[in-house]
């Protein structure tokens, strides 16, 4: 009996060998399609909220948003409103106004398939419309002959050797505008599902600046401090945002791209002759 069994195994084993029609693929292709979420991301700048609560004379709000166009490219925008009072040595002024920034962000960070973090570089065109109020000012005079109480015959006992008051009646300069371009570099990290924490720094270059008569736009909403004889300004934000996924798209892989490129011309050739 044993002889028959062994013979059968040898016989059928031979058949088994024949039934293997395809060669064994030792490197099987991954057929799982990796998808990336596409959608809109909206958020708020935390730094402006924090400074508003900590610093007297400042209130500001900035909304941030972006929309994913392609694998790496995002359309990005910021919308803000700021009111800032600054005390300089001899004058005090308040700037109040709104701004909008529009541009693109390019993600340079290579994510693993389930990650959506970003290290982005980008550019913006920004426009601000605002007003400046000169609250008070003193007159700068290097000569103290008339203001120093020591030189006076009958000085006011309360007098101090201070600059003469120019005016303390607030003076408002309205309908001022400025526009600038910005270079942006920043990071965005997904904290929890669809909640992102971001930070960015910006260098702005003023293009247009409509200034008031006999005063200057020393601070512009969204642009921050304007330095004498320079068109450059710097800014930053720390944003928290929510990502609203709208649709999913297959993650582009370089190998797949090549395959598609190879296949497509053949398909076109076969399709066209069918059309009469």
């Amino acid at each position: 009996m044993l002889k028959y069994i062994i013979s059968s195994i040898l016989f059928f084993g031979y058949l088994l060998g024949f039934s293997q029609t395809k060669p064994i693929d030792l490197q099987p292709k991954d057929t799982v399609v990796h998808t990336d979420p596409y959608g809109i991301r909206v958020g708020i700048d935390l730094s402006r909220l924090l400074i508003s609560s900590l610093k007297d004379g400042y209130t500001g709000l900035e909304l941030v948003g972006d929309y994913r166009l392609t694998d790496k490219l995002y359309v990005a925008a910021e919308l803000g409103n700021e009111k800032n009072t600054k005390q300089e040595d001899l004058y005090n002024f308040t700037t109040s106004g709104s701004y909008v920034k529009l541009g693109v962000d390019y993600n340079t960070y290579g994510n693993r398939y389930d990650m959506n973090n970003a290290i982005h570089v980008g550019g913006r065109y920004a426009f601000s419309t605002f007003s400046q109020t000169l609250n008070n000012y003193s007159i700068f005079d290097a000569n103290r002959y008339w203001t120093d109480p020591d030189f006076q015959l009958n000085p006011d006992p309360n007098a101090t050797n201070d600059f003469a008051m120019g005016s303390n009646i607030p003076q408002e300069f309205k309908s001022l505008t400025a526009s600038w371009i910005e270079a942006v570099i920043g990071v965005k990290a997904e904290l929890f599902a669809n909640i992102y924490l971001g930070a960015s720094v910006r260098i702005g270059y003023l293009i247009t600046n409509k200034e008031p008569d006999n005063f200057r736009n020393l601070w512009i909403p969204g642009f921050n401090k304007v330095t004498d004889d320079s068109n450059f300004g710097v800014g930053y934000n720390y944003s928290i945002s929510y990502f609203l996924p709208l649709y999913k798209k297959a993650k582009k892989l370089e190998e797949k791209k090549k395959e598609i490129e190879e296949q497509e011309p053949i398909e076109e050739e076969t399709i066209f002759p069918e059309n009469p």
Partner: protein
Amino acid sequence: MNKIKPPIVLTSLLIMVILGFMGCEKDDICVDGTTPLLIVRFYDVDNREELKRVPKFRIVGIGQNTTVVGVADRTDLDSIAIPLKVVENTTGFYFINNSMDVDVEDPDGQTIQVEGGDLDSLYFNYNRIDKFVSRACGYIANFDNLSGDLRSETENWIKDIEIIAPLVDNSTEAHVKIYH
């Protein structure tokens, strides 16, 4: 996972460096301008083109206890730079020719020294114009519609005043000519 860290570290470093640079600002010391001084030059009344020094000249602001700071005292001068009051539209000066101390007895019999020179009171009237200069300096004053008002006495040593620049916006050119 180790592959991911370097770009994040680099970017954070870059952000820190840029934030660090934001702390550096242009020096906030005013060097761009100041309220101008009034430049007065003294000319010969007989030869109106010729500068003429005032012997032992002294100038004191009316209401002040000291001579004007920056003008050499009791010196022969043909040109002076004097400050105007910013808070008022009028500034008065005692222009003293041939200034000297004279001993006199006061009612108590004490010997005191008084000014013995020829003293003329001259007031300047003007309108102030505030002008924004720069972030560090803020506003300075310029003076417009300048006019001179000499209080006449029996004999003034100042014979005539001519305003040649009614707008005082610099301290480099002469604004007033005084003939004596």
